[in-house]
């Protein structure tokens, strides 16, 4: 599997430097961002359901 030696052949700029599907770091950051996004969604829906107890009752 390609490792650190293949990361240097890709020259990204801007946000693509940190979030891309080619370099090891980019892929790791995409995965962490995806998990973070899912965690935030779950947290948001839990807080929203706590805020509106009438929604639960109906």
């Amino acid at each position, binding site marked *: 599997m390609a*490792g650190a030696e293949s990361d240097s052949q890709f020259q990204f700029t801007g946000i693509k430097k940190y979030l891309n599907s080619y370099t*090891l770091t980019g892929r790791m950051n995409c*995965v962490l961002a995806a998990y973070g996004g899912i965690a935030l969604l779950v947290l948001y829906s839990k807080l929203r359901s706590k805020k509106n107890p009438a929604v639960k009752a109906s």
Partner: protein
Amino acid sequence: MNENLFASFITPTMMGLPVVIIIIMLPSMMLTSSNRLLSNRFHTFQQWVVKMITKQMMSIHSPKGQTWCLMLVSLIIFIGSTNLLGLLPHTFTPTTQLSMNLGMAIPLWAGTVFLGFRHKMKSTLAHFLPQGTPIPLIPMLIIIETISLFIQPMALAVRLTANITAGHLLMHLIGGATLVLTSISPPTAMITFIILVLLTILEFAVALIQAYVFTLLVSLYLHDNT
């Protein structure tokens, strides 16, 4: 007939005590070790088998992965010998129990995953996103890869359970059919008997192949994470 079909898969007890522990230990009790440099045929054959498995399975691994050599060789010998002993009539096969196979699959898989996270965190996390994935597909693919990771131990256990259980059930059914057909139509009984013999030969192969597949997959997960 229906009740008899699944009777061989019930965990055996003797006077209320579970003998399944002795049954699980039986293959290891049969495969003894020798303290001599040049031992008898049986031990020499055992050593040859272990050497062949070690060379075949462990050559692809890094030194860190090769520390699992004892575990993997023991695993393949245990599953292979348990499956083969289960082909004897009226025996109980522990590998037909999903509980036992999950008990083998989950700790081994989890061990490889934790090893990967411990020693190669970046590479292990990056593994969840195949290289070159188009941007719109990234979130969906990460979720799919995560689900496929967690399905791995389930697939390992269920594959072994289903293969061994199905084989034993088929042998039981075809054997029963042969017996019944003997009095009704001997030529048909002869055909079913030939099918039974072929199936038994297949089951011998399946017993060894399933042991190899289980261990090979654990070895591959280990290779991915070391």
